């Protein structure tokens, strides 16, 4: 009977009947008591590891490109993390560790990066990785090749690179030197971009990299298959074969989970997590996103700091967490996700506690004693943000602000809201590379990605200092200061770093959370 009750719940969910907090939401806490509840960054290790085996991982979006330099979707990068590596790669604690390069040296002035290549690293096609391949790959992703492929996505942070050269040191080891035109001590965070064979033309159909798994096949809208790379220089993966199976949406994937067809599913909603039991453990981590109600600082009335601060006071963030995520998630107070612990400024989280009276007062000061009307633009493909918007609309009513939600398609959001900056407020989640500057760079007044049109000279100055700073402690201090400036200016209403729920079959162990959006399958194994 109990099983059928769950099935019925699943059915209701699929029908789109939102089982909102209140009464029903309360049973959701059952997942707390389940074993295998890992915390952020933890690996659940139970039982003895078995070598070999195949698994199926459920994902919900198709790939935007298999060519690592042409893909930007987080959903693509998290999968391709298993196939490609850069000269360095992130580990589970957010450190950058040597990968294709065995050693990295940064000159004291921060203008030259020297990489010593690891010996004997092989591409999946069997060829040895040479310095020429590395130079080619880095030049390609920095847009420095003679013929530029317009589909290659060049991160603006790499524009400080002036030249990349190959050479050999005294002992015959291959060396790649990256020279910069302006100082940047965080370039390493961007040099995780994939190393691929020089002049290999078929990357988009049959990708070749150096990672622990190698590509086998891809069927659009169906699946991507990879198998163990037997020549991998590092710790060999346990599993023989991993199939990433593309489901139409989380509801279809959830049905597959109920039927036991998939072994790992990384995008459970909190409701689904509370309904699932039996054959799965629910692993808990952070999504490493900055979810905020972003305000257009150039648009009336949000060009007035008092209005922005009033918005911050009027939004009850703990209540949002309760309503949309069963209370899970980490509150933030500025544009930095909690998972990036080293740089996260915890002091600003509670700068604007929920306070209706104060919000009304600030609004009256700014000349809006009766509130105003505004719109919240939300990309319709992100249900989580849509839910958040609905809660915010209700909360803003308390201070007299009438908000209306405008759902737009993702391409429309990109063109009109993000690029065109034609919006009042919007809710999205921003992710970033493993460099603190990448998280904060869009707030520079001249940045093309500054869709908030935020302008603060002090911020620009400190940002420039932070990126050039070679002393680690000083750098951390600068970044914390930047977050404080954003919070004081109430640049946006920063809400949370959402919780992430992953269903992992009880037969498996070793699923690892990263402070980045990746699904590392090389650490997953079957338990004896």
């Amino acid at each position, binding site marked *: 009977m109990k099983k059928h009750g769950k099935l019925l719940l699943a059915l209701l969910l699929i029908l789109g009947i939102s089982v909102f907090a209140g009464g029903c939401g309360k049973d959701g806490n059952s997942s707390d008591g389940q074993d295998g509840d890992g915390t952020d960054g933890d690996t659940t290790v139970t039982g003895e590891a078995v070598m070999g085996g195949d698994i199926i991982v459920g994902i919900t979006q198709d790939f935007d490109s298999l060519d690592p330099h042409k893909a930007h979707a987080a959903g693509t990068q998290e999968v391709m993390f298993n196939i490609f590596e850069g000269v360095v790669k992130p580990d589970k604690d957010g450190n950058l560790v040597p990968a294709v390069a065995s050693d990295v040296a940064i000159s004291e002035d921060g203008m030259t990066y020297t990489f010593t290549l690891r010996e004997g690293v092989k591409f999946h096609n069997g060829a040895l990785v040479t310095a020429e391949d590395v130079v080619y790959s880095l030049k390609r992703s920095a847009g420095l090749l003679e013929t530029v492929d317009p*589909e290659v996505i060049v991160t603006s942070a790499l524009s400080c690179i002036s030249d990349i050269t190959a050479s050999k040191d005294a002992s015959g080891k291959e060396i790649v030197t990256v020279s910069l035109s302006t100082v940047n001590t965080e370039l390493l965070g961007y040099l995780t971009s994939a190393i691929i064979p020089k002049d290999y033309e078929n990357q988009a159909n049959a990708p070749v990299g150096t990672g622990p798994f190698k590509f086998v096949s891809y069927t*659009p809208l169906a699946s991507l298959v990879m198998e163990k790379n037997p020549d991998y220089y590092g710790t060999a993966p346990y599993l023989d074969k991993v199939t990433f199976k593309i489901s139409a949406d989380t509801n279809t994937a959830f*049905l597959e989970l109920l*039927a036991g067809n998939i072994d790992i599913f990384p995008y459970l909603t909190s409701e689904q997590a509370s309904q699932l039991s039996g054959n799965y453990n629910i692993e808990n981590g952070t999504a490493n996103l900055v979810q905020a109600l972003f305000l257009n600082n150039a648009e009336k009335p949000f060009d007035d700091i008092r209005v922005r601060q009033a918005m911050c006071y009027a939004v009850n963030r703990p209540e949002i967490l309760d309503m949309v995520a069963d209370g899970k998630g980490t509150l933030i107070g500025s544009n930095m996700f909690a998972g990036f612990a080293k740089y996260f400024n915890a002091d600003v989280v509670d700068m604007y506690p929920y306070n209706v009276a104060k919000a009304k007062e600030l609004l009256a000061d700014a000349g809006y004693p009766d509130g105003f009307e505004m719109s919240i633009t939300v990309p319709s493909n992100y249900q989580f943000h849509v839910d958040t918007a609905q809660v915010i609309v209700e909360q803003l009513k308390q201070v007299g602000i009438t908000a209306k939600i405008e759902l737009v398609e993702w391409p429309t959001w*990109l063109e009109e809201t993000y690029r065109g900056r034609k919006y009042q407020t919007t809710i999205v989640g921003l992710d970033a590379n493993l460099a603190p500057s990448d998280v904060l760079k869009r707030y520079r007044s001249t940045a093309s990605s500054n869709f908030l049109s935020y302008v603060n000279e002090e911020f620009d100055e400190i940002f420039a200092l932070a990126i050039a700073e070679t002393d680690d402690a000083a750098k951390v201090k600068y970044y914390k200061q930047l977050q404080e400036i954003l919070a004081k200016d109430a640049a946006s209403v920063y809400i949370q770093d959402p919780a992430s729920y992953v269903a992992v079959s009880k037969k498996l162990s070793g699923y690892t959370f990263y402070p980045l959006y990746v699904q590392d399958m090389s650490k997953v194994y079957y338990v004896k």
Partner: protein
Amino acid sequence: MRYYIKKVISLIMVLFLIMLLTFIAFQVIPGDSALSRLGVDAEPEAVEALRESLGLNKSLPERFFSFLSGAVRGDFGNSYQYGKPVGELLSARLSVTVWLAVLSIFMIIAVSVPLGLVCSRKEGGVADRIITMVTQTLMAVPAFFLGIVITLIFGLVLEWFAPGAYIAPGEDFGGFLRYMIFPAVAIAVPKIAMTVKFLKTSVLRELKLDYVRTARSKGNSERAVLWRHVLKNALIPVITFMGMVIADVLAGSIVVEKVFNLPGIGRLLITAISNRDYPVVEAGVVYIGSVVLIVNFIVDLLYQKVDPRVRIK
């Protein structure tokens, strides 16, 4: 002969209009292919360069005619997202959609014709009343809901199939067909209900006509009257309806494809639209348009086969 020439010309005209309208629609709605392709981190110059290389900066008529000249040669270009020829992408999805259509149409015909006849044999009888009640209910059930119910009952409770575990025809054809039965049922059931109702009304109308009395008075059994005389005449409205059903099923059912995780035409089109992948969208629309036109053409031909009074001039 003149009829066929006229038909072919109108077919081409309609296809041309469909392509033009799709093309214009995509100019009107917001969203930029190059921006969707490159995402939030790309610099405006990079987006501009990609627009240039995709030919998106050319004038509208120029772009439409270059697309049209490709389409005439059967070349719809490469998908922006998948980088593969559109024809290849479409034909790979097509096998799923076509098999789904074949299975569901087979079910519709095999089930609804006998049921419709049983109903009309004794109007108001027990069988008729039960079937009418059931079909009335099923007619009101949307295919996606039926899909979920089927998944729940046959997939999760009875475990006759594994929900979402679509098997490609290339891997295991038997497994593929077995899996496809369930989405086919989800598509077929509401259509069966409608076909039964159509057939019943049509047969009952025919039964009141004079030729039926004549056939009976000549000593034909009730069964012979029904099968040999009435059915043929009663089929005409049903054929029209079946034509619509076939075109509908071949165009791909997005909802059923989603519920059953099928990589069919419908999902490909939706993905392409949300990525602003114009070549795929255009080709998909041309495909659907052609299916509808061709099926209608065949229906016209069938009319005159069934009813010699219909003469095509």
